[in-house]
């Protein structure tokens, strides 16, 4: 079952992403607590186009600052809904900025991979169980019994 461990190891390595949280210095005004929560949730959601593997909330890159300001403007001044903000950024920066990519032909492999791996794992476990059961039900014939006794030197 060594290779089962290897599969798990590979899955773990693929799913691990290091996201560093950096301090923010932006000062923004909000009309309500709820609006601020929405803003915070949204900037956590977008990927910084310049610095791979960081969201725009956690990046100090100038473009991330611009995008935070843009999200703030869209939420507070323009009154955009969450989905409209997502569409706005996606139309300009593409799927790349979405950490939650839409299901398309290009991204199918990303979405199918976990299901595929889970299926493979399930098959493996099923096979192991079946094999264990098959082993348990092995019975010795009378001839084999006597030979076994002979080898063990009993009687």
């Amino acid at each position: 079952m060594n290779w089962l461990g290897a599969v798990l190891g590979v899955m773990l390595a693929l799913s691990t992403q290091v996201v560093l949280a950096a301090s923010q210095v932006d000062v923004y005004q909000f009309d309500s607590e709820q609006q601020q929560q929405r803003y915070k949730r949204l900037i956590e959601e977008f990927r910084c186009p310049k610095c791979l593997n960081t969201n725009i909330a956690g990046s100090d890159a100038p473009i991330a600052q611009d995008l935070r300001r843009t999200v703030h403007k869209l939420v507070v001044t323009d009154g955009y809904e969450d989905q409209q903000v997502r569409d706005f950024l996606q139309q300009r920066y593409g799927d790349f900025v979405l950490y939650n990519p839409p299901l398309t032909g290009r991204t199918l492999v990303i979405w199918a991979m976990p299901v595929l791996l889970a299926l493979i794992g399930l098959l493996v476990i099923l096979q192991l169980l079946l094999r264990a059961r098959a082993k348990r039900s092995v019975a010795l014939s009378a001839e084999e019994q006597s030979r076994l006794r002979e080898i063990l030197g009993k009687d």
Partner: protein
Amino acid sequence: MNRASLFIPLGIFCLIMFVGFIGFGLEDRHQLPSALLGKPFPNFSAPLLGDLDTTVTKRDLVGRPTLVNVWATWCPTCKAEHAQLMDIAASTDVQLVGVNYKDNVPGARRWLSDYGDPYDFVIVDASGDLGVELGVYGAPETFLLDAAGNIVYKRVGDVNPRIWRDELAPRLARMGVFRTPEVEAQESGKEDPHGYPS
């Protein structure tokens, strides 16, 4: 252990290779595919670098094929591509528009007077808001617009001789704006067959 299961490690190996192939096969992970290709250039209103009291809008970009070059004095690659831009401005009649991106006005003016000014005019985008509209995430970036103002090509990074030869010049030639010295000599005396205002 039956014989078929001996191939399982090979299968896992192939899976890892497949994921690696996809991952590392992505051209250049710093080159985002532009979401704006084929779409109209966004509407904007911004001051001119030469005269901050004058505002330009998208209307000033449409009507003829246009190269929009996003640049800044803080960007070393912009310095590297500057000679190529000067060459394009000198050898073609394409409209070359600069977007001075997140920069300071005096520094940008000094840059143009020191190194030469290839642009027909330069738009000031001090805040980076026009950059966000354009999906810009660094400088330099260069957009090619057709006469109707649609973005037909985008280059992230410098416009070097290779990009000019392989990407920009053929597209411009199809739009009928490229003039090599030979073509120019050939056509002098004839009427301009393309009818673009000069």
